């Protein structure tokens, strides 16, 4: 019954008019950037972080969370109508969603995606409410050794799930960890890697790095590729799926929800992994695998449910352990820190209205999203006809304003531009920026926990494998690495990514 009381508390917070407004703004923005290809939730949330400074912590988190799961809804619209992923997690929706649109069944595809996402969102919200409190309980017992090992596991998982070369992904994580160390060393007060630049003594701002790596770098890459976007102009048609569609979609939605909820909790997981996973599962289980890629409704329902479920359950490690599973969660931690809240298991007990208010707002936000996405679908389709040459200067203006307003110092904008160039080079060299961002935010945390653990064990590194929980995390990391390093599975993984990219 405690959960019920907590949820009532949460809904009390979430349905206050001001929080309803911020949930609406969040999901509207999320849908907007989800629909527009080339603008992702990471860049948008980074852009809005400075602005949340003026909001209450609850309003800020509600809005930022809305952007993330709202983008999952919006992304499917573009995937189905334009055959382009509006958001990276909807890459697989392109495969069958666009085919359905070509057969004149865009309406049912959109409706299935939206309703499936809504169902998944509701279930995921419940899962967070049930699973988070006991997890936080366990996490309160974690010492520095456990935290360090958990972070190792999180980083390893993030690299395993990155596209392309595993070694390069690990190297990017290490690069991020090193960049995170720039600034004043908390233990000794020594300025590290600041090169006598006074602005660097507080370290590089996380927002600035994220905007450079994901914002400007992406714009540069998009401009180099040139503009070739064809909007699928045929009418959306009636939204109502046929009875046959519904019969085939329901089990797919159920499976997608279960898989997405599970994969979202894993460190390194989230929306992207969930939708890929769900598509593979649907194709494997289907009686008609030959229909996949030619407009199978399961190929839309499963991944769309999964990416929304995954987007929401990925909040669990962030809320209970204070450890981000993906780049968006890293930004959420940044938002908490801006508000002066130390992320970790104590947030739930110290700020129950924040914790439960956020969870309840997710349900409210999902309800908004169904309304936004089905009756108002025409509005978003209009948006798709806006050419990129109008969009990117606008994005640049908002990013620059956001970064400049962090401290009213041009130095931040310079750093953003530099990381834009670094991000561009990384894209060219096929090095994924996402693992680097995770490393960047975990760098100082990892060093501190490592130091404490070693101090407690009097310099004996075996402490990480003699403590049972810590040993569990380390073993899991090693197993993950081995699995990916094994040639047979490695080949499969490469194939999977190739298949899903097309």
């Amino acid at each position, binding site marked *: 019954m405690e959960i019920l009381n907590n949820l009532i508390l949460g809904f009390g917070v979430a349905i206050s008019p001001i929080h309803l407004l911020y949930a609406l703004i969040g999901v509207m923005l999320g849908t907007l950037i989800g629909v527009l290809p080339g603008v992702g939730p990471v860049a948008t949330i980074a852009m809005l972080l400075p*602005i949340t400074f*003026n909001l209450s912590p609850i309003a800020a988190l509600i809005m930022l969370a809305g952007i993330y799961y709202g983008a999952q809804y919006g992304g499917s619209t573009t995937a189905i109508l334009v055959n382009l992923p509006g958001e990276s997690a909807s890459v697989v929706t392109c495969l069958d969603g666009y085919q359905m649109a070509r057969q004149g069944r865009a309406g049912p595809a959109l409706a299935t995606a939206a309703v499936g996402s809504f169902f998944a969102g509701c279930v995921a919200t419940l899962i967070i409410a049930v699973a988070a409190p006991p997890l936080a309980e366990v996490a309160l017992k974690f010492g520095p050794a456990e935290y360090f090992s958990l972070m190792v596991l999180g980083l390893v998982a993030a690299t395993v799930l990155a596209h392309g*070369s595993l*070694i*390069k992904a*690990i*190297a990017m994580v*290490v*690069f991020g*960890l*090193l960049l995170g*160390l720039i600034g004043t*060393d908390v*233990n*000794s007060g*020594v300025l*590290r*890697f600041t090169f006598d630049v006074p602005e660097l003594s507080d370290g590089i701002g996380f927002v600035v790095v994220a905007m450079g790596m994901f914002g*400007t770098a992406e*714009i*540069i890459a998009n*401009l*180099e590729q040139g*503009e070739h976007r064809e909007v699928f102009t045929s009418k959306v048609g009636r939204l109502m799926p046929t009875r046959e569609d519904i019969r085939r979609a329901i089990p797919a939605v159920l499976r997608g929800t279960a898989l997405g909820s599970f994969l979202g909790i894993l460190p390194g997981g989230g929306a992207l992994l969930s939708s890929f996973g769900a598509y593979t599962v649907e194709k494997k289980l289907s009686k008609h695998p030959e229909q996949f890629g030619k407009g199978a409704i399961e190929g839309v329902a499963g991944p769309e449910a999964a990416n929304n479920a995954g987007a929401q359950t990925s909040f669990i490690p962030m809320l209970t352990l204070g450890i981000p599973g993906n780049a968006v969660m890293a930004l959420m931690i940044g938002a908490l820190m801006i508000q002066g809240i130390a992320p970790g298991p104590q947030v739930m007990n110290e700020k129950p209205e924040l914790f439960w208010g956020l969870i309840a707002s997710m349900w409210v936000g999902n309800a908004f999203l169904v309304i936004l996405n089905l009756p108002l679908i025409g509005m978003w389709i209009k948006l798709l006809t806006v050419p990129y*040459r*109008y969009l*990117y*200067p*606008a994005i*640049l*203006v908002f990013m*620059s*304003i956001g*970064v*400049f*307003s962090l401290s*009213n110092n*041009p*130095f*931040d*904008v*310079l750093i953003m*531009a*530099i990381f*834009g*160039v670094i991000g561009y*080079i990384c894209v*060219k*060299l*096929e*090095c994924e920026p996402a693992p680097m961002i995770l490393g960047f935010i975990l760098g100082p945390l*990892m*060093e501190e926990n*490592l*130091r404490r653990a*070693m*101090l407690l064990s*009097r*310099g004996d*590194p075996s402490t990480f494998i003699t403590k049972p929980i810590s040993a569990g995390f380390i073993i899991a990391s090693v197993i993950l690495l081995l699995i990916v390093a094994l040639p047979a599975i490695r080949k499969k993984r490469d194939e999977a990514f190739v298949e899903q990219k097309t």
Partner: protein
Amino acid sequence: MKLRIKAPKDFWAGVMFISLGAFFMIWALTHYQMGTAVRMGPAYFPTVLGGLMVFLGALVFIESLAMQGPSLTLPFNIVDLVVAVLIYAGLGWIFKLMGIGGDYAILAGTVVLIVLSVLFRPGTKPLVLISAACVIYGYLMKPLGLILSTALLVFIAAFAGHEFKWKEVGILYVVLIVFSILVFVKGLTLPFPVCPAFMETCPIR
């Protein structure tokens, strides 16, 4: 000697990782205290990480010589990169001798890069112009104010694209600046200078 690189992307990624890792490691070792495993000094963690990065970079590097990989296409070459760094370093040095602030050296270097990119390396326009537009916006915000620096940002950025029509970009700029002033200055009350510093009274605000 002509070495055939089979996987240029991995080759250069390896070079990048090795040099970055080595830099962090050596810098940490020569500037900060190592400490012991029990009481780690500020150099301990960066040295370990730097070493790990060199090792990983070496793996990528060696693999790139043995295995076939996709080719790397860049709109500039390594000489261009060196030239760009030299421009900033040189201008910084000259401005320092003349007693002018480092901010102006960064601005001047950026302007020189824009000109060079547009004239000699049209392929680098997206990379150079987008980055440069942000830098110019940031460094001119205080002297020129929001209205003028946004104009520079929008026009320079738009020039990096495939199509550039004065009228279109002009309309886009007007929309964006009105929106920025209404939302960020009036709505969120961010402390931006709206008008240039040399204007004594600002009609807005």
